[in-house]
């Protein structure tokens, strides 16, 4: 019982110091995060633009899908505690990201899984496989945004 309390207190202390430690750095973390997702959006746009064409450039789709799949893995590190609205910096990240950490992690995982499939579909170069997978991946973007991002 006592160990449980100590553990909880220690966890709280870590949380608090992490929040404090991030303090000044929060703005940088948020900025890097925004740039990361911006690149994701641009990569998605590249794929969608190509798919609108009569003769899509598979190479462009492939490199963008690869970038999306890679970022889907690194994005786990983009949300340290203290980089939410409480940081005072301008961010669309909702507090729910941390209060509902399990739900957020599940949403991130769903995105990563679909992004990896997109990377594979793009690697195959088969447009019939790419088109539906772009939609499936897009749905997981929305899955996070609807719940954990302030609608702007």
């Amino acid at each position, binding site marked *: 019982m006592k160990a449980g309390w100590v553990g909880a207190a220690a966890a709280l202390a870590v949380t608090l110091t992490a929040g404090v430690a991030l303090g000044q750095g929060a703005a940088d973390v948020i900025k890097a995060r925004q740039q990361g997702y911006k690149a*994701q*959006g641009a990569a998605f746009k590249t794929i969608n633009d190509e798919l609108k064409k009569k003769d899509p450039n598979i190479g462009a789709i492939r490199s963008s899908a690869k970038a999306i799949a890679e970022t889907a893995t690194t994005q786990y590190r983009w949300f340290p505690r203290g980089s939410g609205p409480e940081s005072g910096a301008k961010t669309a990240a909702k507090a729910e990201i941390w209060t509902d950490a399990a739900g957020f992690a599940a949403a991130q995982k769903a995105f990563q899984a679909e992004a990896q499939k997109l990377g594979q579909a793009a690697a195959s170069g088969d447009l019939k496989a790419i088109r539906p997978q772009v939609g499936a991946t897009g749905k997981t973007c929305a899955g996070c945004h609807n719940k954990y991002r302030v609608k702007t």
Partner: protein
Amino acid sequence: MKADAKIRVRLWDAPTRLVHWSLVVLVGVSWWTHEIGRMDWHRWSGYAVLGLLVFRLFWGVFGGTTARFSSFVKGPRAVAAYVRTLFAPGQAALPGHNPLGGWAIVAMLAALICQVTFGLFAVDVDGIESGPLSQYVSFDLGRSFAEWHELSFNVLLALIALHVLAVVFYLVAKRENLVSAMVTGRRLLDSEPKDIRFAPPGLALLGAALAAAVVWIVMKGGRL
């Protein structure tokens, strides 16, 4: 009885009324489909608004007298003169848009044109939903278009609010029902207005064909 002396005059032709009420519905539909995230419906609604705007501009040049820009877009002197009579009682109602209302129409049309144009190039935050011409702009510029799309919607809402307020003012203060005039196309006036002509239906069909062609090209991503 003075009211008995009034006559019912046909002012607004069917295409003008149809455009007006379709825009009322579609502005609502566009707002709602965005709210619930049905961007496929939102694009369809936008295409319809685009078609209506193309038609209305065509009709503003080739349509009937009351629909023509040349008949209702007046200079600052005429506007000022009209504003001075606005609160004076017993003013005879004007056939068609008054000099002040004419500019409200121009402003609302301009806001709608901005609204649709920005939407054509807009890109959403994750690069997934986008306007039919967004492939011609970068992601960053597309995001800017999305912001302008939102901004111009607020401008549009403000203009619509002003428009509705003006209609209420005419109803309450001047006892003139402009809503029923836009529904039936007819309005009670003191005398038969001179020089009001209507365009033949065939011309409306030509305008509709032009609107459909523009929408078709835009939907195809600007390719013929």
